[in-house]
């Protein structure tokens, strides 16, 4: 048991090392690309750092949405991977940045809004179910006099008793 508990953090650490290695390789081989990607995915990175609950799910959502927006620009990014001027033009044009950040913002909004809507639907259905159950219970109690006779071993007096 103790071995299993100790193994989990080791595995997590290995992923961190892999991610760090990838980032290091990217920075070492294509610094402009690294900067561009850092700017483009800054919201996702921030979410990964800040919103750590549920396995950093918000950060992942933002990352996926950012990737989906940035993927059509892959050839441009690849061509400007080692060119600081092209990189700065790309970032200064704000089109790619705006698109990528907008997609991430949309992802964030969806990640926050859809659970609310989902919860609202669930709660509405539960309340309706509880109301139906209470109504059925009331009818049973009235028909069988369960209020006077008590339920669950505890005697409950009728209101007029």
């Amino acid at each position, binding site marked *: 048991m103790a071995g299993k508990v100790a193994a989990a953090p080791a595995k997590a650490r290995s992923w961190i090392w892999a991610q760090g290695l990838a980032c290091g390789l990217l920075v070492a081989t294509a610094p402009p690309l690294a900067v561009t990607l850092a700017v483009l995915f800054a919201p996702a990175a921030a979410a990964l750092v800040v919103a750590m609950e549920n396995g950093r*799910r918000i950060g992942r959502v933002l990352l996926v949405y950012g990737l*989906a927006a940035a993927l059509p620009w892959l050839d441009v990014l690849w061509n400007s991977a080692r060119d600081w001027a092209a990189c700065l033009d790309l970032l200064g044009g704000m089109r790619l940045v705006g698109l990528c950040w907008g997609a991430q913002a949309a*992802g964030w909004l969806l990640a926050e809004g859809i659970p609310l809507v989902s919860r609202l639907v669930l709660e509405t259905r539960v309340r309706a179910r509880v109301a139906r159950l209470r109504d059925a219970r009331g009818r049973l109690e009235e028909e069988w006099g369960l209020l006077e006779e008590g339920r669950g071993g505890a005697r409950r007096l009728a209101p007029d008793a």
Partner: protein
Amino acid sequence: MAPPPPDPLPTQPPAPAAPASGRLIAGQFTVDLARPMPGWGAGQDCFVATDTKSGRADHMALLVRRDAPPRVQAVNSLATMPIEGILTPVAHGPAMGPRGVPAWFVVTQAPPGPALWGPHAPAPVAWHEQDLLRDVLRPIAQALERLQARHVTHRGIRPANLFRARPGDPATLGCAWAAPAASLQPAIFEPPYAAMCLAGGRGEGTIGDDVYALGVTLLVLATGRVPMAGMDDAAIVRRKLEVGSFAALAGEVRLSPTIGDLIRGMLAEDPDHRPPPVLLADPAAARARRVAARPPPRAQRSLEVGPVTAVNLRTLALAIATAPEEGVRQMRSGAVDRWLRRALGDSTTAVQLEEVVRRREAEQPAEDLVADSTMATRAIALLDPLAPVVWRGVALFPDGLGGALAGAAGQEGERLLGEMVAAEAVGSWAAMRPERCDPVLLRVEAHQNKQLQHARGLGGGTARLRYGLNPLLPCRSPLVGEALVARLPELVPALEAMAADERRREGVPMDAEVAAFIVARSDVPVAGELARLGEARTPEAAALVVLRLLVWLQMRQRIAALPNLAAWLGSRLEKLLDGWHNRPLRARIAEALAVHVKAGALPRLLDLLDDRVAKDRDAGEAAEAARLVARIEAEIGELEAGAAGRAASAREVGHEVVLGVGMTALTLSLIATLVM
């Protein structure tokens, strides 16, 4: 016997008159309450009775006291065929009595003339011997002979109960069957063993007891006075046992030799030594018959036991019977044993008594009142086999238990009689004198009586025994008021009439007396139902058992409606509705209950309230409903407690959906990038 006070009423039997008012007795006789016949009923109230068939008022109706039932077997036996020389009963039954209170009457022929002694008789004078033999001894002996042939005793022979129309006519025996045997006899006319009993407990006795009473009657008429006048009953009994009946009654009286010899034989202590009626019909032969009965040996010195001084075995038995606690003490201390050996010289009896005492010491703990009383009963039977059963001062003969219970109802004597029955004292008594009775039969009877008395719940006790042994004893429950309820069909109408008064509706219309009456009079076993009544934990449960019994009675007697009893029970049974769980069903039952109560339909009430199948179904459905409610409550609790879980679930699902959309967009974007 002190003569009754003079009565101003006529000395002749009442003349025929208009038909009496009131209900018909046996469908033939009416009782004219406006024409009482004081002094003609041998101690009982009596009235002129009219035969509606002949229209003649030549009968007499004797009013039966409620605590002294008539001798049913004798009445029924004699009513079928009258006996010459006796006012035999011709009918009996209920009719309206004095003060509007119903009563039981025994109808007999009217006496032919006034009694030989009493308010309507001529002044008492000593009769001539020939008149006595011709007018009294012969006709009465012949009448007794006929009675004996019918296996019936009279037990009411005394001058005040002998009648004749005019001097020279043979005397006629009056009625003696409208009360327990010998219960109205003064002690002077009874053998001492019967006189010491409770009035109702003297039993049917034997024809020898009638011979004894006839002997005393002859003595009174021969001397023109009542011997031992002014003495109380206890003193008379003591004196008779001390010196013998003849010596006590006629010791100082000068009698003609014939009368003296006859009376001496008739007053023998042992009934077997008295001349039978057939012999008395021939006085010369009866006089010649002498049974050698030695007087009991007298002790050299007396023994004081309580208030009685014992001088022989008989008086010792009487002393123990009179003062049982002192007698038991002296027996256990050996004082009686020493007295028997040294003063009386009767070592045989002493050894037998010692065995009785040893048996008591071996069987029971030292301080046991029942064991002491049983020992006293055995000792009395041993010392004097002619003595009755005696239990703690109460004496009776076994066949007089019914009459004794009837007379002692509601008094201390009833408790003592109950103790006696519980201890099977009759069996113990019989075992000590097997030569004078059938001990096996009496023991079986005693055991049966004990079983009846020990019946659990209502319907048992001495009341059960009282009604069982007295077939015509009316129910003495306050629930029937003054109604005469002597037979089962009369019970329900009486209860219904009493229930009309709402102030009387307390508890349920059933008490121990009514229950015992029902058990005793019913020909089907209802003791189990009454036992359930005793075990009922709530008033409404008791009311339901009573309802069941009354329904049984109502259907058995085909009574259409009992609205008063229905209202009484309905008010008690309303609480039973609480036992129904389904409220709409309960409301419907309550509605139907009100309808049936108003209609007085007890069977429908019972069907409504005692429907086991419907109640079981209702209970099952109620339990199912309760389970359903519990499940609903559990589900509501789960739903209310699951808000946080649902929120987490909604967030997770939402995120998964958003992620799924994002992945889809990413895939499409990748495809689009690759294609372009």
